[in-house]
């Protein structure tokens, strides 16, 4: 069933509103949803991503399926959220889980607005001046045989001088749409290491927003690894909000077969003397399609900003597609801003060299693809994540996943 984009936008809004009312949405959040518009044919920020898949009616039902292959725990500290509901948690001293959620700044997509109207947030709050040694593994899972969705919302809050590592890890099966909002809020002298691991089944959908809200002079290091699926939309909005704050984001995305990833990143510098550094690499094979839109917005008052963005991409064959675009909005002269984006192909000379040593062509391609992102894999600071990431990537690069199968 294909419907026109504008009819679909209206239908999605009707569905979202009905669902929000059923799920008890009220007040300002519901009013915001009433005022929002879902992506239409000419909506600039959705130019590369069709939400046509949602014509199957994902927003009409909440996912309630059983997980066939739930995630293994990557740490002793685990929080499990299935189909949007908190199931279990096991947390060390110094970390409190509660539902008293602060308002989240910087949410933009209509899907995030919908999430705000219905989700019951899981807040993980790290006490002031506390260093949490063990990474906290937040498992966000969804399963549904029929089209359905869920609305997980996770807020990580580091108080003054807190230090922690959070592994935000998605898993999806069947036809589930995960409509996620995650916010990372850091106070002065906080240091957060964050992972966002997204290897859901190719048949699933994911529309997610990540907010990084550096309210204090803090350091956030975020590592984002993702696989394309039927529809993956990834909005990242970082607010580097207090002088002296530092942000690094590194990421790898892989689209194979007919899968899709649309990354919309925006790093916003509002105050003087902050640093941000982004390094993302993309790989696309078969008819995979990826988008990377990296915006750096430096406000007039943000003098002394140092912002960098790099996005290099590799097309594994003819037919794959990656669109990358840096977008700079700079409103003062006293900044350092470097950016570079490239889209290239496998180097024939390198490939021949490997083959001339007996390595079969497909294996040579896989090795070169892994080599392309190796510096980012090597940069992962936690062994547990690195041990997850390497086989994940090897599997992604070894075979195209037929849509409708597979696990995280």
């Amino acid at each position, binding site marked *: 069933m294909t419907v026109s984009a504008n009819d679909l936008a209206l239908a999605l809004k009707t569905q979202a509103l009905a669902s929000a009312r059923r799920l008890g949405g009220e007040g300002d959040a519901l009013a915001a949803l009433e005022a929002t518009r879902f992506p239409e044919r000419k909506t600039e920020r959705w130019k590369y991503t069709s939400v046509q898949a949602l014509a199957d009616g994902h927003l009409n039902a909440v996912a309630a399926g059983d997980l066939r292959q739930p995630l293994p725990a990557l740490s002793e500290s685990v929080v499990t959220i299935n189909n949007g509901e908190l199931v279990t948690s096991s947390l060390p001293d110094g970390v409190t889980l509660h539902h008293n959620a602060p308002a989240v700044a910087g949410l933009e997509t209509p899907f995030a607005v919908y999430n705000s109207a219905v989700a019951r947030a899981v807040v993980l709050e790290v006490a002031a001046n506390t260093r949490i040694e063990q990474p906290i593994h937040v498992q966000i899972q969804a399963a549904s045989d029929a089209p359905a969705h869920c609305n997980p919302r996770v807020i990580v809050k580091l108080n003054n001088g807190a230090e922690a590592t959070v592994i935000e890890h998605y898993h999806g099966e069947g036809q589930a749409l995960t409509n996620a909002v995650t916010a990372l809020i850091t106070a002065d002298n906080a240091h957060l290491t964050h992972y966002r691991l997204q290897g859901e089944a190719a048949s699933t959908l994911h529309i997610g927003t990540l907010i990084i809200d550096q309210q204090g002079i803090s350091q956030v290091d975020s590592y984002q690894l993702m696989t394309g699926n039927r529809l993956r939309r990834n909005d990242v909005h970082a607010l580097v909000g207090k002088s002296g704050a530092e942000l690094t984001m590194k990421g790898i995305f892989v689209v194979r077969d007919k899968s899709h990833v649309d990354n919309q990143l925006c790093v916003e510098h509002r105050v003087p003397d902050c640093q941000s550094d982004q390094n993302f690499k993309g790989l696309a094979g078969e008819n995979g399609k990826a988008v990377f839109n990296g915006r750096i917005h430096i406000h007039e008052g943000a003098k002394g900003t140092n912002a960098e963005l790099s996005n290099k991409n590799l097309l594994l064959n003819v037919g794959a597609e990656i669109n990358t675009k840096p977008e700079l909005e700079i409103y003062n002269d006293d900044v350092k801003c470097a950016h570079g984006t490239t889209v290239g192909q496998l*180097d*024939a*000379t*390198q490939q*021949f*060299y*490997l*083959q*001339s*040593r*007996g*390595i*079969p*062509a497909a*294996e*040579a391609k896989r*090795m*070169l693809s*892994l*080599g*392309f*992102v*190796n*510096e980012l894999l090597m940069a992962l600071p936690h062994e547990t994540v690195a041990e997850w990431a390497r086989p994940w990537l090897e599997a992604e690069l070894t075979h195209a996943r037929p849509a409708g199968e597979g696990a995280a």
Partner: protein
Amino acid sequence: MLEIRDLHATVADKPILKGLNLTVNPGEVHAIMGPNGSGKSTLANVLAGRDNYEITGGEALFEGKSLADMEPEERAQAGLFLAFQYPVEIPGVSNMEFLKAALESVRGAQGKEEWDSVTLLRQARAACKQVNLDASFLKRGVNEGFSGGEKKRNEIMQMLLMEPKLALLDETDSGLDIDALQVVAKGVNSLRSPERGIVLVTHYQRLLDYIVPDFVHVLSNGQIIKSGGKELALELEQKGYGWLTGEEESA
């Protein structure tokens, strides 16, 4: 083991080899010399199966099989090895994982016993030592940031591990100082055996002081215009190539 008959080949559609004949039997060491641009590297690349290097006439048989019908990796699996004149850098792929993949494939295809990772590491370290390459090079990206001489020694190190039936060395001597040259020569000489063929492509006769060839051929304008014993190399050293090619040349 290598039988090249009236070979014609093009590089990017440009005719370079124009009727080349060469036979290499097991146990023999051949040197191919010739002026720059005469087609020496083209011959090596054609035999190894590089893209854009196309056989347009004649044939090249390796142990009776036509190389033209084989993928580059199949040629390596069959026992052909080319030490490149300009080894490419491959950042992000470590020398060790590269060797592991190469040896697994080649040893597997040749029915040799599989090396576990401990054996592989031991063998690789020994091969490094043989060519005076620090074992730390195994951890680095393939040829990444290696000096010219280190790249050449890395090629020989790989060759020692792969134990090819036929080794082609393309100007492995160029850019080496005398010590490195001796190291490389020792490595090659250690592979000399009655079952193995070796073809040395070189511009200078210097290498041949250390690896004494059984036959010397002069390649000019895509053909072998003269063949002889090791004394031919000395003659070339004295007279240059001009007396054979009929051209002035400076190198």
